[in-house]
């Protein structure tokens, strides 16, 4: 653990630990007693002062003392007195810290509310310390001490564990009264602390149980020995209704540093050699599966599962299927632990379990959809989306950039003047998850392409608009000749071309153009020019566009003389130009869509029939996206431009 060297207590912990080592080495019962008393006083003072800075460090001392005594015992038979004392007292101390020190302090502290709010943290560290002790005991296969420790753990109680419902009732009564916010706050914290106590206690037991199973998998413990440990961790210790919730929690990201499990290892490693520690995520899942096959305790309480956990069910089913395959492949090794005499029995149990989970998966997907359908859209996420689309549009809308470059454009403020709307309205199925806050948020990649799509459409519209009226046209078989002819024709009409527009591929593919001395390429050379300026031909700038209309055509023109652009502006749009709006599907919209395509919406993604109500819910997990620009291209002079066609 990191510790600040400048802390006033720096070094005290190692000094105390050295004293413990000496006391064990010297077989000094009295010294150990004095040191354990010191530890108890540290715990008690930490709780009274609501400070975990020392508690979270010293709470691991009992487990470390146990380990040290055990290791010394192997070389020194005279340690029996200290061993008996240590093995008996250590779990007792931990139990007393949890059951007495914490509960007693409720009565003596001045600020009950503050105290109750901090209790959860102490419970976490205390059970973490207990878990560490059990980890060593199972590692040393010390069944006797393990039984004693589990007994003490079972006896750990929080003050109001039996009266949880009383607290709840008390809270309701207090809420009905006036001017007792502090009491209400206290009761709320106390209820939370009680919940934390029960969760941590249960997780400590489950953790050690699943770890024992993992040790068996790694051939670190024999089946019979494992059975002896597991029988102390009997099912009545756990509330079956919490099992699903627990396994989903164990598999979530937050469990990486939970209960110190990341540091549990099944063998002593050689220092200096790299190795991978067992992943808690993996052994907890495997342990869970084996435990379920042994006990069939699963009871799915869907109502208590929320958000991210629901998403985890799908991956859990996959992991459990993998576990089932592996156990089946090594059935001979596992059959005693699984309590299934034949592979058929095992398959029956495992299929039943997996099927139960698949039901959960299906149910939870519906549940998740229901929650998602009711969530409001997040303005922040919509803004992020608008910026994403806007940036893509900005870089692709090249005709717009050329107008800006030449300055022949103007915003139209008069609402009576009608302009064209370019873009699209998209019904984005299951797209709502991209626009909500919280657990259901999910990024959908590639959406920025929609911005590029609108931009290309806008460019294409420009070419459609300029192709419609009577205009000059020419054709040739090579790009150089086409440019020369177009320029010549315009110059013949007394027009000095200011722009050549062509597809970007000519700038690197057409040898004729590349080798012509009049062509001056700027690609990758002059970064001060707009990125879509390919260079110049005879000092006339060449710009590019991705529009498909330029695939076999070029445009040569006096841009300012030939064209003008009018556009609508709005402060709420991206860059005041691009209208991006995301709206949720209303009940009426959903119904209209369902009525239009009942067949499509009555089947879910697994091909199963769903009710009309569920179908409406599914529709409401979609959103409507509008992306538009409102513009009008005006042709000022048809003689000022020429379109060249490549034959």
């Amino acid at each position, binding site marked *: 653990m990191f510790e600040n060297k*400048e*802390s*006033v*207590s*720096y*070094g*005290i912990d190692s*000094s*105390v630990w*050295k*004293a*413990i080592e*000496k*006391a064990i080495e*010297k077989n*000094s019962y*009295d*010294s150990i*007693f*004095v*040191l354990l008393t*010191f530890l108890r*006083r*540290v715990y008690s*003072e*930490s709780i009274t*002062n609501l*400070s975990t*800075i*020392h508690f979270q460090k010293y709470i691991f001392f009992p487990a470390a003392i146990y380990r040290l005594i055990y290791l010394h015992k192997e070389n020194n038979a005279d340690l029996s007195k200290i061993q008996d004392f240590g093995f008996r007292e250590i779990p007792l101390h931990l139990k007393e810290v949890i059951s007495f020190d914490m509960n007693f302090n409720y009565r003596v502290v001045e600020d009950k509310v503050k105290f109750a709010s901090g209790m959860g943290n102490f419970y976490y560290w205390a059970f973490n310390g207990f878990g560490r002790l059990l980890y060593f005991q199972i590692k040393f296969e010390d069944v006797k001490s393990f039984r004693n420790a589990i007994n003490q753990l079972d006896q750990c109680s929080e003050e109001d564990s039996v009266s949880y419902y009383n607290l709840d009732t008390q809270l309701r009564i207090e809420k009905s009264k006036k001017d007792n916010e502090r009491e209400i706050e206290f009761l709320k914290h106390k209820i939370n602390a009680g919940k934390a106590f029960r969760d941590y206690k249960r997780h400590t037991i489950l953790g050690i149980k699943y770890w024992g199973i993992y040790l068996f998998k790694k051939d670190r413990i024999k089946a019979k020995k494992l059975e002896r440990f597991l029988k102390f961790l009997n099912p009545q210790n756990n509330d079956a209704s919490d099992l699903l919730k627990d396994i989903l929690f164990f598999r979530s990201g937050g469990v990486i540093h939970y209960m110190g499990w990341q540091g549990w290892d099944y063998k002593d490693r050689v220092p200096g050699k790299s190795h991978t520690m067992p992943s808690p995520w993996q052994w907890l899942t495997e342990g869970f599966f084996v435990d379920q096959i042994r006990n069939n305790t699963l009871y799915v309480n869907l109502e208590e599962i929320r958000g991210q956990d629901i998403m985890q069910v799908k991956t859990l089913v996959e992991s459990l299927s993998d576990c089932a395959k592996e156990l089946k492949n090594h059935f001979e090794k596992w059959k005693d632990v699984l309590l299934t005499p034949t592979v058929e029995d095992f398959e029956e149990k495992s299929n039943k379990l997996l099927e139960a989970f698949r039901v959960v998966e299906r149910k939870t997907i519906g549940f998740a959809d229901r929650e998602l359908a009711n969530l409001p859209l997040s303005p922040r996420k919509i803004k992020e989306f608008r910026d994403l689309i806007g940036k893509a549009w900005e870089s692709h809308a090249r005709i717009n950039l050329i107008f800006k470059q030449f300055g022949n454009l103007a915003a139209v403020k008069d609402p009576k003047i009608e302009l064209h709307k370019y873009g699209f309205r998209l019904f984005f199925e299951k797209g709502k998850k991209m626009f909500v806050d919280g657990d259901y948020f999910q990024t959908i990649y590639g959406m920025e392409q929609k911005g590029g799509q609108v931009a290309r459409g806008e460019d294409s519209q420009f070419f459609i608009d300029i192709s419609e009226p009577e205009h000059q046209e020419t054709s040739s078989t090579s790009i150089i000749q086409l440019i020369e002819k177009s320029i010549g024709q315009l110059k013949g009409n007394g027009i000095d071309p200011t722009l050549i527009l062509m597809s970007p591929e000519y700038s690197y593919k057409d040898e004729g153009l590349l080798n012509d001395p009049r062509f001056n390429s700027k690609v990758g050379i002059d970064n001060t020019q707009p990125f879509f300026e390919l260079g110049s031909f005879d000092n006339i700038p060449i710009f590019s566009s991705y529009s498909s209309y330029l695939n076999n055509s070029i445009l040569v023109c006096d841009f300012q003389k030939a064209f003008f652009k009018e556009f609508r502006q709005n402060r709420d749009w991206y860059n005041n130009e691009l209208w991006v709006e995301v709206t949720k599907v209303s009940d009426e919209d959903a119904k209209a869509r369902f009525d239009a395509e009942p067949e499509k919406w009555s089947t879910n993604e697994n091909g199963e029939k769903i009710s009309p109500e569920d179908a409406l819910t599914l529709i409401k997990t979609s959103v409507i996206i509008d992306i538009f620009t409102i513009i009008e291209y005006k042709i000022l002079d048809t003689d000022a431009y020429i379109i060249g066609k490549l034959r």
Partner: protein
Amino acid sequence: MPFLNTNSLRAQITKELRIKHESLFDNPYKEFYNQCLEKFFSKQQWWLIGLLTIFIFWISRFINIDFLNFITLKKESAVGIVDQRTSNVATIISMTIAVIGFLISNIAVKESFAYRLLFERSRLYTVIYFILSTIACLICISALRETIKDDFIYVRLIITGTYCVVLILFLIGLLFRRIIRFTNSKEIQEMFHNEMIKEAKTNLKAILISQASVTKITTFFEESGLTDYSLSAAMDRLNPFSSGPSEIDKKNQLTPMIVDDIYLPDIDVYIKQLTNKEYYYRNLSLEKSVDYYDDFIFPKEGANLKKNKRKLSKLLNLKKIPKKHSDKYKVRTYFEQKLEEFSNENKYKSMEGVLDTYLEVLVLEMKNI
């Protein structure tokens, strides 16, 4: 007296911490008084005691306190007395040293730390310095018997010497009383305990002051529009493609010093005088050892001018790094050794004493961090 300087960041933070951590701080005047006393009684102050003694002898001719004027002496008698007084004091000091030697050899805990504490707590150094200074003065007075023509002045010097001898007797009494306490092991343990708590409190105060100063200084720099000279900024500056010259490399290495105090209003004035360029600031905090005290604000492009460096170094109050850094934790180190020793010898009763002290230190930290 930092609490008198309104620009002092240390004074400002200490004032705030006094309210928040009441148990950790004494009354500011009492604290100042104790600091002065501690300095006065330290073993390095031999010269001060010497000067003070000479001053007492010198001032005697101007002092006219009625109830001290009951001694009347003629110069002839005074000349006879001075040698007597000198030999009296010499006898007293030899006896005193012998007795002290005896007492010290019977001290309950015979350890260097206990001896050090004994010398500090008993004020032995100060008393001995005073006795020696008095002897020196009396010898000089004796030698000047023919030189000092003014009878009144000479008699006054002899009378002052007599009073000093009486005072020495009183001080020796006090000294014995203090040293005798060291023959009782329980009293010594209690003293050790108090020393440890005192040390922990001093260090904890320094830590709290340092922590509070980090927040204040960073906020101040950020609000002044300066940019943190972070690792990425440093990397950027060292980038050969970046436009600014890398002046950091050229910086002359200064001897690291500890920041004792910072004057933020003065720094504010300095920042306001700067041109429109953008500036970086480097992390500063009280009690931090730094070697950039003349360069803690510098432009993003280029480097500080020499005159600016001079100005900057004046905005901080610096102190030398103590030679032994572990001196801050000398009592704790002693306790660590003792616990190891007690556990080695199975002295569990003695271990209890050390652990009690440890617990008090931990509680002190729990309550204040």
